[in-house]
């Protein structure tokens, strides 16, 4: 057993932290306030740093690093700006990774290479109004028409939606099949005919990450853009989400770490009853619980990432990491606001934003309720 980062992982931590502190952090509050996605900063620069394809082989424009390095990158970005963290996570885990895992060599060259390089942004479109936790309820359709597939339907809550050049879209290609059967995955380019963008959501948190509705109205895409085998969409979605959970768990971990550091620093400075509030046991205990839970979350996240890179099964571990880290992020940010008192409730301090941002980590990429079912099923099998 070795519980320490290797040189490459440490270097990635240093590099991303410096970048995040110097460039992502300064305007994070302003972007949140304005609901502004600053693509040049929040995505293009990640590409320049080699983060947009960090886990993919160099042959596909990636950095050839492991999942722990990727988790560290998302964690460090989210420590100062959760919206930037999820931009990377959704792009890499949900859009680029299924192409890497299930795409043909031609698809990889054509689509994975620009995604990995950061010249194109990716998105993942699974959720529909009636198909949230139950992806088997997918209603969007795909009908083969000669050399094309014709897509119809609407996807909602799509992270990077409207901005992404490449979208992984799930639709029912076999009308006769029921539930999770008969669904296929497709790669849809932004300028495909019949593809448009609907409502952009106004959200509680991660407000500088765009979340948008995708509308397919007789959208024609080349037959070659079917990803994986016809009818294997559900399997592709679930496999993709297994990995995606590592990204979201890392995002939650970063949010928790940022809020903890803010609370710790404030507790040292703020005086009441003639002493820093950090001298009171009530505040010390909050900080101790935060630090302990964050450390536990970090180990769960890195364990899931370690297993993913080592080629070991990691579905249960990534569900545990996502469940635990997101619950920790919520508890820690709520307590961090409490440590700040009235100031914590204002937008003058970052913990207010962090608490709003944390909430989504318990919901997306499989609600924590679904994670518990995944874990409960795995351990009672």
């Amino acid at each position, binding site marked *: 057993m*070795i*519980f320490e980062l290797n040189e490459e992982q440490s270097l990635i931590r240093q590099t991303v932290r410096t970048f995040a502190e110097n460039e992502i952090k300064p305007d994070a509050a302003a972007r949140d306030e304005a609901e502004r996605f600053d693509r040049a900063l929040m995505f293009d620069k990640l590409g320049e740093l080699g983060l947009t394809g960090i886990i993919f082989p160099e042959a596909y424009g990636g950095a050839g690093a492991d999942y722990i390095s990727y988790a560290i990158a998302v964690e460090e970005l989210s420590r100062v700006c959760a919206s930037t963290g999820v931009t990377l996570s959704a792009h890499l885990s949900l859009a680029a990774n299924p192409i890497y895992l299930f795409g043909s060599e031609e698809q990889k060259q054509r689509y994975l290479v620009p995604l990995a390089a950061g010249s194109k942004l990716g998105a993942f479109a699974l959720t529909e109004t009636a198909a949230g936790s139950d992806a088997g309820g997918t209603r969007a359709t795909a009908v083969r028409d000669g050399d094309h597939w014709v897509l119809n339907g609407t996807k909602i809550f799509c992270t990077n939606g409207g901005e992404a050049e490449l979208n992984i879209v799930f639709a029912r290609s076999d009308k006769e099949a029921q539930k999770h059967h008969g669904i296929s995955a497709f790669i849809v380019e932004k300028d495909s005919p019949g593809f448009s963008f609907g409502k952009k959501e106004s959200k509680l948190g991660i407000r500088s990450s765009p979340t948008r509705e995708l509308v397919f109205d007789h959208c024609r895409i080349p037959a070659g853009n079917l990803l994986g085998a016809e009818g294997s969409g559900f399997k592709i979605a679930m496999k993709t989400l297994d990995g995606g959970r590592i990204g979201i768990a890392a995002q939650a971990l970063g949010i928790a770490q940022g809020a903890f550091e803010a609370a710790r620093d404030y*507790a040292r400075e703020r005086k009441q009853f003639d002493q820093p509030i950090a001298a009171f046991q009530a505040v010390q205990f909050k900080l*101790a619980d935060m630090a302990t839970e964050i450390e*536990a979350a970090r180990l769960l996240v890195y364990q899931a990432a370690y297993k993913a890179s080592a080629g070991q099964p990691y579905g249960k571990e990534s569900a545990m990491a996502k469940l635990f880290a997101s619950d920790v992020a919520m508890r820690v940010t709520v307590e961090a606001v409490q440590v700040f008192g009235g100031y914590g409730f204002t937008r003058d301090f970052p913990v207010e934003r962090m608490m709003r941002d944390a909430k989504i980590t318990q919901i997306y990429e499989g609600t924590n309720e679904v994670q518990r079912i995944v874990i*409960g099923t795995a351990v*009672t099998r």
Partner: protein
Amino acid sequence: MNLDLNEEQQLIQQTARAFAAAQLAPVAGPLDQGGDQQPFFDNLLKLAELGFMGLNVRAAYGGAEAGAVAFSVALTEIARACAATAVTLSVSNMVCELIQAIGSADQCRNYIPRICSGDYPAAAFALTEAGAGSDPAALTTSAVSDGAAWVLNGSKVFITSAPYAGVFVVWAVTDKQAPRGQGISCFLVEGGTPGLAIGKQEKKMGQHAAATNEIVFTDCRIPRSALIGRLNDGFRIAVSELAGGRIGIGSLALGVGLAATECAIRYALERKQFGQKLADFQAIQWKIADACTELEAARLLLMNAAFLKEQGRPFARAASMAKLFATESANRACYEALQIHGGYGYTADFPVERYARDVRVTTIYEGTSEIQRLIIARDVLRDFD
């Protein structure tokens, strides 16, 4: 990072698991109910023969040199079957490591092999007093030198293994004038020394097979050579050695929590209500999912602390985090496991009733959860300086 156990650690884990299933599990229930104590002592001797009394001790002293990670996984496996055996093992290992860390060559040669070999059934750690629990600097047992010997007076409470411990590590005040915590020293006192009386055995909620007693020193004379470590350095010794013990207790709690959760899973797969297995109800699945997730996080915290210790790096904060989290989550896991068993869980017909009692003390001994939080908070606030 490499989060897999190496071959040696896996082997020790398997050995401990097999021994626990074959030897400890069958007697744990009867021992808890006050049955014949002999199997308890027989098992301690067998565990010594397997090398489990000095897992992190040099071979020259009869130890296994297996490291802190192996110690943690072994303790967890033992505790899955019998927490009382596990706590005895944990304290004996802690005493071995303390003697190895600060003892003279003579002290090491004299005592460690006897603990490791099973010649002594157990060793004891005598710090706590009636008025000095979380605040050990308040202890009042005294050690006065009369030239030829140290003379001990006072009493200690809650001493694990006292009636059969071959040797006690005893903390006593050697300089009454010194500032708080700076006039305490540490001594090795052999069981049976005149003037050392074993007082009343506590009636406890759990861990029944492991004796917990008061011990009383009345003009107890021990040789000059019984001083271990530097004079008046005892408080620092206690604080630093307890950090290692915390990995032991955290690992023990993890074992009990896992055992309870396994019982709950087995029961949930068998028991039917409303025409289906309990395991098919989401309410039950969630309890199990939460317990498994928290125990997995606890295991990683323990492994992390043990790794740091093994590397010779500072590990006090990591050990406190591991102890705090493992014991608190093991308590939750045991109570939820009992809840899953319903009324049957409240009866002694199912082992989960014993687990729920056995686990309770883990958030209390070797530093309460409250003390762990203070240690962690001080450390994270110090980082900031």
